[in-house]
């Protein structure tokens, strides 16, 4: 199977090249673009990008595996990322996390069978004043409680 970088992403990569004096600096922004399109970064995508930038496969793979935001497996339509760090922890994140596990019947790192939700824990999201925080894809949901989490799940289409 091979992965084809879309025209749009290619154009974006060309655009990005103008911003940096070295081509390698485009790597992380390019991976963001590819993930935006595909939802995750597959082995084939790594292959395709290393060819596109003329960098060794291991060089690209090394970067993909270093940064936690690059998903190395497909994720659900909604990626629920519960902050587990200090202020969210003390303000109730553990209860929200166990509630989510129960409601979605999945463990951390898993995706529901219908492909709607993936559940992860993440480190401090830089929003500790509105703890606990859950990021859904790129959007922050702040001052969460178990009740608000239930509302959120309903809005996102959890079937009971």
């Amino acid at each position, binding site marked *: 199977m091979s992965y084809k970088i879309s025209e749009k992403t290619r154009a974006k990569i060309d655009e990005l090249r103008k911003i940096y004096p070295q081509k390698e600096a485009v790597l*992380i922004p390019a991976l963001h673009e590819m993930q935006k399109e595909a939802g995750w970064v597959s082995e084939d995508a790594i292959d395709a990008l290393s060819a596109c930038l003329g960098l060794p496969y291991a060089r690209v793979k090394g*970067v993909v595996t270093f940064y936690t935001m690059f998903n190395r497996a497909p994720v659900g339509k909604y990626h629920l990322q519960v902050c587990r*760090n200090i202020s969210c922890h003390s303000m*109730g994140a553990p209860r929200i996390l166990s509630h989510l596990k129960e409601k979605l019947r999945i463990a951390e790192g898993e995706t529901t069978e219908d492909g709607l939700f993936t559940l992860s824990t993440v480190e*401090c999201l830089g929003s500790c004043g509105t703890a606990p925080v859950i990021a859904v894809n790129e959007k922050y949901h702040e001052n969460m409680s178990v009740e608000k989490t239930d509302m959120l799940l309903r809005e996102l289409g959890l079937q009971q």
Partner: protein
Amino acid sequence: MMEKILLKTEAADIEAYIKAGGYQALRKALAMKSEDVTAEVKKSNLRGRGGAGFPTGLKWSFIPKANTKPRYLVCNADESEPGTFKDRELILKNPHLLIEGLAIASYAIGAKQCYIYIRGEFAKETGLLSDCVNEASKRGYLGNNILSSGFDLNIAVHRGAGAYICGEETALLESIEGKRGLPRLKPPFPAVVGLFGCPTVINNVETLASVPAIIEKGGDWYSKLGAGKSAGTKLFSVSGPVKKPGVYEIELGMPFKKFLEDYAGGMLEGSKLKAVIPGGSSVPVLTAAEALKMNLDYESVQQAGSMLGSGGIIILDDKACMVETLLVLAKFYHHESCGQCTPCREGGGWIEKLLRKLEAGKGKEGDIALIYSIAENMLARTLCPLGDALAMPVMSFITKFRPEFEAHAAGNGCGKREAGSGKSTQ
């Protein structure tokens, strides 16, 4: 009266910002000699707000004059230190103040290209900054021949991708270069060999946003704000069981007690202050008594036994179990270690494992001393301070809250463990 600089006007819109006097400091700076801009910042006694508190003007003056390579300004908007959320607020409320600061700093050091490295999770903030950069360019505050001064500057917003270590300045440079975020050995310092091998200044968002006011009103004026060697105003982000968590700008030197009561609104009903981590999660913890005696400035917090750091004040109340809280931090620092240095990579893992046992009531008597000695052996033995960032909390938690650790080792726990924890809101 409390002077406000950073959150004085809240104008994400460029028109409103200009109307409130925005971009006048840039105009003034461009009419000055670049050395004089740096001299003014030196005079202000502004210190880096990213955590280390290094004098900003002095840092700028380290750029070698004879070096003919391009120069870069890098703005550190990685904001990943747990308990810290001030730069995000500043970006959302006053993005053009930051951009104006970037332009002035770039002029001072002779940089024609500036990169804002922003953490990948800040999607909204990234979009906003990019829009603001475009607007500022359209109006001639960025781009070629800025305000007809002959000075050119481009700003690019560069997104990170989830790695706490990339807040460390040399890991950040590696990350912009498209590499794994591994801190570099210093020297050479970034001022000499920085981004793409060129002279580079790296400053925090808040540091750079403090610059326009210094140029507008003068270094002398700024140096008189605050308390002695801790000049100026600073943002403090306060989180945990207080009535009004959030970001507040105050002049340095305010008693913590006053800040807690008047700004953070005091403790939540039913919560009693137990401990304070005053400068982001990597600085030593203080007991309530120690914290209530200190003032919020670099010297006073140090005297109290901790560090002002990023100004991320984490409040812990009587419902917090100190063993469990330390475990949360140990897991974090272990996970975020880049793996280059053995003491940090292995020590972090050992400490996490031992704390996990202790917290689950399966620890032994010698474990506490062992954890402490691992931390002691990590301290100051690593390339970058990430090792210290775990060692300092570990040593201070154990020293100051030892009976709790001992109760856990004896298998008695702290009597606070409830299903799912998260006790402060129960």
